[in-house]
């Protein structure tokens, strides 16, 4: 039953936003797949749950595009894990996606919350 509940709380990711979230998460430090998923979950206040079935294909796709590089390292509890790191191209991509995102938010806000306030 609890599973069902959680499902209802979840927000479907918009098409294309997962890439941006991954890039953003890796902006400060390299991280492994599980860590990335957890970071997105925590930062979104448990609202965004990244499915592994989307996460790993996305990571591999971004790596193939040259935005990420991967490296095997050992975690703090001695687990070998594949750490992803942002490349210079990845940083540029992140910047461009971010500005596109801002534009989109503004545009959607413009539609959803028209300037002539007082309606709500």
């Amino acid at each position: 039953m609890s599973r069902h509940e959680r499902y209802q709380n979840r927000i479907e990711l918009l098409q294309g936003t997962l890439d941006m979230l991954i890039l953003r998460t890796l902006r400060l430090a390299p991280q492994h797949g599980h860590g990335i998923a957890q970071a997105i979950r925590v930062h979104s206040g448990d609202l965004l749950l990244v499915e592994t079935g989307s996460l790993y294909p996305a990571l591999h796709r971004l790596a193939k595009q040259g935005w990420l590089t991967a490296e095997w390292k050992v975690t703090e509890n001695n687990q070998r894990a594949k750490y992803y790191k942002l490349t210079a191209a990845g940083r540029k991509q992140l910047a461009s996606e971010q500005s596109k995102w801002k534009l989109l938010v503004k545009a959607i806000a413009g539609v959803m919350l028209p300037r002539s306030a007082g309606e709500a």
Partner: protein
Amino acid sequence: MSRKNRELDEEIRTHLALEIQRRIDAGETREAAEAGAQRDFGNLGLVKEVTRSMWGWSLFERIGQDLRYGVRALRRNPAFTLIAVLSLALGIGANTAIFSVLNVVLLKPMQVTAPEELYRIQQESRVPVAQRFSYHDFERLRDAAVPESVAAMSSNARVSVAVGSGAQAEPANAQLVSGEFFAVLGVAPVLGRALAAFDNLTPGGHPVAVVSHGYWKQRLGGEAGVLGRNILLNGVRFTIVGVAPPGFHGVFLEAPTDFWIPVMMQQEVRYHQNYSDRNNADGEQPWVPQEGISWLDVMVRAGPNSKAAMLTALNIAYQRRLAAMAESIGDPQQRRLFLEQRLWLESFAQGRSSLRTRFTPHLFALMGMVALVLLIACANTANLMLARASARQREIAVRLSIGAGRGRLIQQLLTESFVLVAVAASIGLLLAYWSANALVGSVVNRVSGQNPAMLAVDGRVLGFTLVLSVVTGLLFGLAPALRSTKLQLGEALKTSSRSLPGRSRFNPGKFLVAAQVALALLLVVGAGLFARSLYHLGRVELGFDRDHVLSVSIDPRASGFTLEQLPALHARIIGAVSAIPGVEAAAVAMCGLASECRSSSDGILITGYTPSAGEQVVFQENRVSPRYFSTVGMRLLRGRDFDARDRHGAAKVALVNQALTRRYFANREAIGQRFGYTSPDTEIIGIITDARVNNVREQATPMAYYSLDQEEVHTRTLEVRAAGDPARVSAGVRKAIAAAAPDLAVERITTLSQQVGNSLSAERLVTVLTAVFGSLALGLACFGLYGVMSYALARRTTEIGVRMALGARPSAVLWAVLRESLGLILAGLAAGLPVAMFAARFLSRVLYGVQPWDSLTLWGAVLTLASVAILAALVPAWRAARVDPCVALRQE
């Protein structure tokens, strides 16, 4: 790829482990944590699959996949693979073999510095001239050019070598060269010094030799101590001063040179080959000082920019010399022609080769033939691929319909072709390496009696095979690949595997079979022409008795006999040999039959014959002992043979052949007439039948025979007539000569028929090879026909079953199937015949006694091909006629 897969597995395992740890840290039990992590993760296999699909395939991985797929597909169909690989391997192997021979004989340069800059000086003239130079001529040419750019050299001579006194002498090759030889070639010795300009000073004064690397290693111990060692060459002491580098075998392709010695030593080593003398020159005296003896080849080095200037300088120097010589020529017309001589430069980048001069047209003919064989093999394989492709139509349709790109499929089908070619090419290369060596070995051995160690598969041959393989792969692979991927998907998926597409559709398989028949006809015609040619050569009336004569090569001059000793020597060996039971007669001669020896004189005067302006009277000549003609079986037509009257000092007499009387005594009696060199002092006493003394292909030229009793010259042959098989007395002859003249070296004993046969070895080899290629082509074409018809039949079994169930008679079915094959055969023959008649014209240079459009050969080839092809077509037709309707109909 598997590494990437392993990494993905580990990445996912890590994810699960971290998730479980997180859940445990959050307070779940281990079981709950594990179950939860698994559940959240979802379908493990699907995640992996989707992730993997993100990787994409690099070109390399795709090729790897295709290769594996191709190998698997080929292994699944071993009969197809075996036949395709075998026919392609034969085709590629034959091409590589012939090409590697062509490469060595025609393309490969000598291992010297910038071989493309080397030339040999040739003379262009409308009057017969010696194509060689006297030593003085060489000096004039050398001094007209840049220093160290002109060198003189003799032919390769067989010499006997003895290392240390009392050692057994053994034969080796020595070349006499001027001191500039190594400098012009740009060949530096690995040890000691090369010959140099200071080895050109005094006749007889330079007993030094440079030894080849091979001879040094194999015979002289291969140590540095060889410098300064003495060896005996033809009994003369020489000091070894240098060792040539390993890659340099001299300038004669078929006969590696073992020793290079100064030209100044000509008289000492008794070198006396390939020379012409004029104006009372004396061949017995040292040659170096004599203007009248032309015996040297002159080689020059000239870069692309200096070649023209070099040639001008050489011609100016030579013209000065010609002008001086022309003063003695009375006839103004003759003088003008003489002065018109010009020098020109012939490339010497590949050195000299008797194979090249004799067999170049044969090699090109063979190259054309093997190309045809490969084309047929390609057509055959293409046919097999097509048949297989239609069997795989549904597979391909399925793959296309689930989204495989057409380009991708073509790439994959082509990869299969290339796997096939790669396997075939490897086998073909081995085949070629083995057979080319055997081929060249057998020809060279018979031509020069020596073993060449020169054939290796080098970069050029490998490159040729590679390019050939790629072209082959595209030839037979591309069309089927394009065709089989161009499908009406719906139709292809709907149709059952057994029904046929409409009859009207163009059938490339049948087209290919007809093309194969046409190509095979070309090869069968070629083989037929060569066989007829060889047959004619074997039947040529030689004018001497090849079946009962043993020919013994001797060289009294090289063995150290003087002219004065010769009469006694000849009497001794003729006497000893004649005493052997089974020997009927023996005689010696200056030149042997069907040997390389040939002597001619020009400027002959004949009483009662006025040459037209500029005409040169040239007689070939031989000097023989009494009873020569009866020994070799030449018939005396009229007049008398030499006898006791014709002694030294008596009136000079000669016998002449029919060709001479036809040419110069057309309307008058030749016997009793006189001719001579400076004055007509020699009387014709008899006429001998024409004989092909030089080689089988060459018509008899005007020829005069003189008696050794009247003027002694050095002889080169002893002819022995045996009552029965001459080979049986061979051992006895050798023993008798060794006993009678232990100092006389016997070079070779062969029967005349062997000697003649050897001179035809190239023709025989070409004939055998074309017969092999022709049969191969015939076999492949028939196989193609059989395959296509059987395949078509297999797909029509149901139809035939229905027809027979409805009352068609077996004979009608047989005829129907056979008629289709006949149509293909006829189409192929009709297309091939004009092409064959056209292509055969290119063979005219290598044919003998048969015209390229010889109708017997053409129709013989057509008949052979037609009958064999019909046999191949009968099998499937007969099977069709025996189809059991019940079985055929139940199959559906």
